[in-house]
């Protein structure tokens, strides 16, 4: 079971800050589930992609999206 993070109650830039902090506790290539609202999608995903992480699976429940983030292999 992946560790999971709920940022549905947060706004930019705390959304990505929290994702970043959660990823720090995860080993390289490890996974994190992130639950977020539609408004945070673009910034969170583009920031994750820019840092070399992969968003490998997504699922939608109404206006809440579930992302499965795979941390980059460098572990940075």
């Amino acid at each position, binding site marked *: 079971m992946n560790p999971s993070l709920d940022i549905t109650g947060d706004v930019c830039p705390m959304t990505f800050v929290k994702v970043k902090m959660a990823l720090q506790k995860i080993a390289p290539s490890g996974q994190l589930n992130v639950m977020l609202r539609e408004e945070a999608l673009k910034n969170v995903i583009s920031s994750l992609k820019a840092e070399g992480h992969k968003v490998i*699976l997504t699922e*939608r429940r109404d206006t809440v999206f579930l992302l499965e983030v795979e941390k980059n292999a460098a572990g940075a």
Partner: protein
Amino acid sequence: MNEADYKELKKGGMMRQKEAGLFSVRLHVVGGQLTAGQLRAIEEAADRFGRGTVHLTSRQGVEIPFVPTDSLAALKEFLSRSGVGVGVCGPTVRTVTACQGCRVCPSGAIDSPALADAVDRQFYGKPVPHKFKVGISGCANNCIKAEENDIGIKGFVQPRWSGNACTFCNISEAVCPTKVVRIPEDSGSVEAVDLAGCIGCGDCIEACPSGAMAEESRGYQIFAGGKFGRIPSLGKKILGILRTPEEVVAAIAAVVDFFRAHGKAKERFGATLRRTGLPALEINIKERMVRNP
């Protein structure tokens, strides 16, 4: 000095002030860019010929106010020696405004200052029926407010969807601000973006987790006939997405000639367009661009 003299001075960027015998002198600024050397010259000029102040205009220009009539010639001479041009007013092509563009701004899709230079070189100060303003925004965020200009330009990022890479997560649909992304049910279809309503912001590309939504190309979206002033009206989208700065300059040349042919004195370009209709302009531009590609 008679009214005709004042008018001539105004065309050359020397604006009569409320108080007789004083002028606010407009400088030539392109896309809001000045070198530190030019700024030092402007500083000295404001001290020597004005009252030590400058005014930053609403369209990225600089004026030196409180210059006495008998200092105008000396100021002009001083500025020209220092590499600072004097501006224009009256029925001419005015200051070309621009953002910092893709060389500086992370959002920039086009090199707006370079395009501003090209437009300025060809059109600045040229006579037209009424004042004519060009503004260039590097992306859909539109910091320069393209639609307030007689000709406005915006950088445009065109997305392309590849079904075989798509995970059908619907994220690009969710982030699209104009809701023109419709991901098809199956990967065999090709069209996922209704480009007619696309503003070229690139959000769908940025948000797509799988890379299925990718950048197809970058280009220039053109708006015509906008103004602000007493009765504001926004410019309308014309032509498709242009691909090169050369195409943009050619399109503006066609627009300026169209305005010269159909515009009346004291009539802004938007009013001319309301008389002729947009299609007349677009047909004219396209014919010209086909003749001189």
